[in-house]
């Protein structure tokens, strides 16, 4: 469903709470919002299942979602995603199938930017696609640097023994 004009400011505020949209101004955020749609999900409803083809990404506006796994044969929420957080944003960079099932843990609403809409924005050189990618860039670079720091610390510890050094050298270093 389309977002009602009188709710745009409120929804834009939610969107800008997300790191990907943080650097956007209010006008830009509203412009990006208009490229997507909002969806309601009832408690227990599956947003997408592991192995599904990717179709864009979501930002949670209200409610909570669980990234589902299985423990002792029972379905379990391994991670909980709340308002302002993204779901499936890495699908904007590559079209791999969904890596996990995401289910609504309460009655919720999400903003959805469909993959086909994003492709059209990119093909048209629309600045909204660039803004989204630049937001994603900040987030991916931060995650990469953080993980490299962890990797360096673990590699130094493992290299203290010969077997560990062989392992570290076989893994190599990403630059």
């Amino acid at each position, binding site marked *: 469903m389309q977002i009602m004009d009188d709710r745009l400011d409120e929804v834009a505020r939610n969107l800008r709470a997300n790191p990907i949209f943080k650097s956007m101004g209010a006008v830009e955020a509203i412009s990006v919002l208009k490229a997507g749609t909002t969806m309601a999900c009832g408690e227990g409803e599956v947003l997408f299942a592991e192995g599904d083809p990717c179709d864009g990404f979501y930002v949670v506006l209200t409610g909570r979602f669980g990234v589902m796994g299985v423990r002792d044969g029972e379905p379990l929420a391994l991670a909980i995603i709340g308002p302002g957080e993204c779901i499936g944003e890495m699908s904007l*960079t590559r079209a791999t199938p969904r890596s996990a099932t995401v289910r609504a843990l309460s009655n919720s609403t999400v903003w959805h930017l469909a993959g086909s809409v994003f492709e059209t924005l990119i093909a048209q050189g629309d600045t909204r696609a660039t803004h989204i990618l630049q937001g994603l860039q900040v987030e991916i670079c931060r995650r990469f640097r953080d993980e490299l720091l962890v990797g360096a610390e673990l590699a130094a510890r493992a290299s203290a023994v010969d077997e560990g050094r062989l392992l570290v050298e076989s893994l190599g270093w990403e630059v």
Partner: protein
Amino acid sequence: MIHPRELDNVSCLAMLSVEERAALALRMIEIPVLPGQDILREGSPSSAAFVLLDGQLSVRKRLVVNEQPYELPGILPVGEWFGLVSVLDGAPASARVRAVTAARLGAIGKEDFEALLRSGDPVGPKLLRAWLSSIADQLQRVNESVLMLRLFLEQNKL
């Protein structure tokens, strides 16, 4: 000058059409490097993103192991971009990259890339997406390495 066909084997640029790769090749510069020449220095920011077109480069990351300096080798195959994170977020390079043999690089400078993004040419966001895809692949490999290292350290009580 970079021939557009040379970008055909650059993994993440498969997302661009032949025409878009040709347009990108025109915006890139070719950099010949000599054996022993440093392209990235660990701790220094990079003013360009590079792709290895031909030749052999070495990657070295400085670590301190048992209070001794140790250089961890890395991997950089032909057709891979490097220096992406440094050019995108301005942070220092995480390792040194040095030519082992005479090599040829393709490069696009930070300012040229930013101008391309502002130009409204779809090649700009498509290149950014290709780079993010490349970094996402690297991130996945680092995640896997971190998991393996944690397991090793746990098993060996280190």
